[in-house]
C-alpha cells in the first residue's frame, strides 16, 4: 500500500497507460496476464512484479483490462479527484420507469436484485397534481447528515463532492442510515453473495467492491469510472437520457448523447434540489416533469405484478387511465 501512496500526480496522468498498470498490478494484481496467443502484435514491453516477487517483462498486448481494480490509494480515495465537483441532473420529464438504470447499477456493483442503490419512486406533490416517476440515488449532499454522525470517519465527503463509504472502516452502527433523510443507504444484513473473482479483489472505497457483511453501502457515483472519463452505468443504461452526469467546475453535464452547460440547463428548466428545506444541499438536481415525453402510466403497465404492488397507492389512478 505504501508504494501506492507514493504515486505522485504526474504519474497518475499515465493511468491509462501500461506503465501505471505495472504499479497497480504490483500491488493489487488486478491486471491479468493473458496467455491467449491470438494477440500477435508486439506493442511494447512492460515490467511487472510477479507473485513470486520477481520483476518480469511482458508484452503489453498480453495484458487484459479488468474492471473494478483499485487504482488509487486509500488516501486518494478519501481525498477525491482534484479540481472536480461532480454533479447530476435528473430530467423527470423523460423518465418512464424503464428500470434499466437499476439493473445496470446492480450489475456493475454486483448487488442482488433486492438491493437498489438507485430506486424509482412514484411521487405526487399535491392532491390535484399528477404522479411522476422519480429516480433517486444518493444525493451526495454538500452538508451531509450521514457524514456528520459517523463515529469512525468511515463515511466521508471528498473534495470532488462525493460522499463515499470505507467498508473496511465501517463498524455497522447504522447511525448514518438513521440520519439520512432520503433513506439512501442500505445495509449488508447477511454475507453478500459475490462471484469468486470479485470476492478476492482488493477493496477500495472508490469501487465499493467487494461488499462486506455488517457494513453500510450506497450509491457512489462510480468514481472509479469517473477517473477513466466514463459515465456511471445508470447514465449510460438509460434509454431516455434521463440522467446527466458531469462536473460543476467545468459547467458541463452529459447524458451520453448530448453534453450541455449545467448552469444553463438548471436555469432554463427551473432545476431544483429535492427537499431543499432540509438544508442538506444535495449535489443532485431535478428538472420538473413538465412537457413529459411519456404518459406516466407507461412506466406502470409493463411492470411485473410484484413491482406493481409497490405503487399500490396509485392503483386506482392507473386503472382509471386504462
Amino acid at each position, binding site marked *: 500500500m505504501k508504494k501506492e501512496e507514493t504515486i505522485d500526480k504526474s504519474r497518475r496522468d499515465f493511468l491509462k497507460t501500461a506503465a501505471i498498470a505495472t504499479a497497480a498490478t504490483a500491488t493489487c494484481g488486478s491486471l491479468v496476464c493473458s496467455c491467449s496467443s491470438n494477440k500477435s502484435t508486439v506493442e511494447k514491453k512492460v515490467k511487472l512484479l510477479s507473485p513470486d516477487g520477481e520483476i518480469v517483462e511482458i508484452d503489453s498486448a498480453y495484458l487484459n483490462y479488468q474492471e473494478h481494480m483499485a487504482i488509487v490509494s486509500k488516501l486518494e480515495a478519501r481525498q477525491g479527484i482534484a479540481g472536480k465537483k461532480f454533479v447530476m441532473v435528473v430530467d423527470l420529464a423523460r423518465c418512464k420507469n424503464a428500470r434499466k438504470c437499476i439493473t445496470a447499477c446492480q450489475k456493475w456493483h454486483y448487488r442482488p436484485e433486492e438491493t437498489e442503490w438507485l430506486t424509482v419512486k412514484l411521487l405526487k406533490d399535491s392532491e390535484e397534481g399528477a404522479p411522476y416517476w422519480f429516480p433517486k440515488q444518493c444525493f451526495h449532499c454538500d452538508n451531509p447528515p450521514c457524514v*456528520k454522525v459517523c*463515529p469512525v*470517519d*468511515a463515511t466521508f465527503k471528498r473534495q470532488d463532492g462525493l460522499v463515499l463509504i470505507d467498508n473496511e472502516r465501517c*463498524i455497522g*452502527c447504522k447511525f448514518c442510515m438513521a440520519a439520512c*433523510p432520503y433513506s439512501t443507504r442500505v445495509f449488508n444484513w447477511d454475507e453478500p453473495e459475490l462471484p469468486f473473482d470479485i470476492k478476492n479483489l482488493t477493496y477500495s472505497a472508490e469501487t465499493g467492491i467487494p461488499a462486506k457483511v455488517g457494513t453500510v453501502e450506497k450509491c457512489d457515483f462510480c468514481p472509479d469510472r469517473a477517473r477513466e472519463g466514463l459515465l456511471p452505468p445508470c447514465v449510460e443504461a438509460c434509454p431516455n437520457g434521463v440522467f446527466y452526469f458531469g462536473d460543476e467546475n467545468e459547467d458541463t453535464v452529459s447524458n451520453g448523447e448530448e453534453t450541455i452547460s449545467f448552469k444553463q440547463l438548471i436555469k432554463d428548466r427551473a432545476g431544483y434540489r429535492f427537499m431543499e428545506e432540509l438544508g442538506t444541499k444535495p449535489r443532485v438536481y431535478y428538472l420538473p416533469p413538465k412537457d413529459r415525453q411519456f404518459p406516466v402510466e407507461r412506466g406502470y403497465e409493463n411492470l411485473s405484478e410484484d413491482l406493481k404492488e409497490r405503487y399500490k397507492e396509485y392503483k386506482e389512478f392507473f386503472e382509471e387511465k386504462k
Partner: protein
Amino acid sequence: MELNTYQQEAFNHQRKNIETFGKRTWGWTIFYLLWIFVGGYALYLQIAKGHGITGMRDNVVWGLYIVNFIFFIGISYAGAIIAGLLHLFKVPWGKPIIRVAQMMTIVSLIVGPVFILLCVGRFDRLHHLFFYPRLQSPMTWDVMAILTYFVGSVLFLYMALIKDFAVYRDAKLNIPKWKQRLYKFLAIGYRGAASQKRHLIISQNLLAIILIPLSIIVASILSWIFGMTLRPGWHSTIFGPYFVIGALYSGCGVLIVAMWVYRKMYKLDYYFTDRHFKYLGFIMMVLAAGYGYFTFSEYFTSWFGSERWDSEVINKLFNPAEYGWWTLFANLAGILLPILIIAIPATRKTNYIALAAFIMVIALWVKRYLIIVPTLESPLLPMQDTRAEVVKYSATWPEWALTFAGIASFLLFFTLMSKFVTIVPVSGLEDTHRPFELNHEHQAEHSIPPAKKEEVQPA
C-alpha cells in the same frame, strides 16, 4: 472497624445474607443463567448468520436492542442522580437506600451498552471507535460520556463500599478464604482513622458533585443520537431534557421495585420502611408529572403544528390499527397510574406503590419502543417496497431472547451483588440512628422493630 450499636444491629441482621448463598438464591441464579444461555445461543446465531436473523431492515435499522439500550442506560443515570443527591444533601432517610441506587447504576450501566454492541454490524471493529474517532458524531460523544460515567459511578459505589468492606473484613464472617481475602483487599487498609475518614468523605463528595451533572450530560447526549437527525419524531429541541426526566422517572421506579424485592427477600422492613416507599413515591409522582408534561408538549406541538412528517408519526402513534393501543398503555400506565396511586391516600401503600412502579417501568420500556420504531417506519420518501419485513418492524425471537437475557443478567447481577455486600450499608448508617428517629413526628410509627409481613403480593 468499631461499630456503634445501631450499625452492629444492622450488620447482624444482614450478616447471614453475605455468609450464605442458600437454595433459593441458587435456584434463581440457575434460572437467570438459563435465560442468559438462551440469549447466548441467539447471539451465536446472529454472529454466525448475520444480522439478517433480526427483524431490523434498511428502514427500521434500530430495533429492540436500541430500545433496551436506552432503557437500561436511563435507569443507570437515575441511580447516579438519586444516589448523588441523597449523598450530597445528607438526606437522613436516604442512608439505607443509597446502595441500592448505586448498585442499580452500575448494573444497568454494564447491561445497557451490551445492547448497543449487539446492534453493531461489526463488533470485530469496535476499536475503530478509539482509533478513528470523529468528534462531530453524537455517537463519539456518547462513547466518551458513557466511559467517563462508568468510571465515575464505579468509583462512587466503591468509595461508599470501602468502609463496609472493612467491616466485613473485621467481622470474622463464616465465609470461604478467598472471599475473606477479597474483602481485605477491597478494604485497602481502611481502619477508620480520622484522616482516612476525611479523605473518603471528600472523595465521595467530589464524585457526587461530578456525577450529577455528568449523568444529565450523558442522558442528553443519548437523546441527541436521535435529536440530531432530521427525522420526524426525533428532531426535537426538548429531547435532551425529555430523556433526562424519562431516565430519572423510570430509574426511580426500578429503585422502588428493587427495594421492594430486597425488603421481601431479606426482611429489611426495618430499613426500607413504608415511609421510604412513600417518600420515593412522592418523588416518582413529581417526576411523573414532569415527564407527562414533556410527553404532552411533544405530542401536542407536533399535532397542532401538523407539519406533514410530524403528522405522519403522530398518526401512526395514535391510530389504533398501528400503535394506538401501545401509546394509550404507555401514557396511562406510565404517567397517570403512578400519579393516581400516590395522590390518593387510600392507595398510597407500599405494595401498591411498588406495583404501580413496576407497571410504570414496563410502560416506559414500551414508550422507548414508541420513540424508536414508529419514526424509523416513517421515512420522508415513501417506502414503496413490497417486502413486508422492510415496511414494518417486528422483532424476531433472537432479539427477544437477547432482551430477556439482558433482563436476566440485570437480575443476576443484583442477586449476586446482594450476596457480596449488605444491601443496607452498615457503616453508612454512621451518624444517624434509626432512619426516622431524627424525624420526631414519625417517631411513634417506627419504634416498633422489624418484620411486618405484607399480605398483598403484586404480580
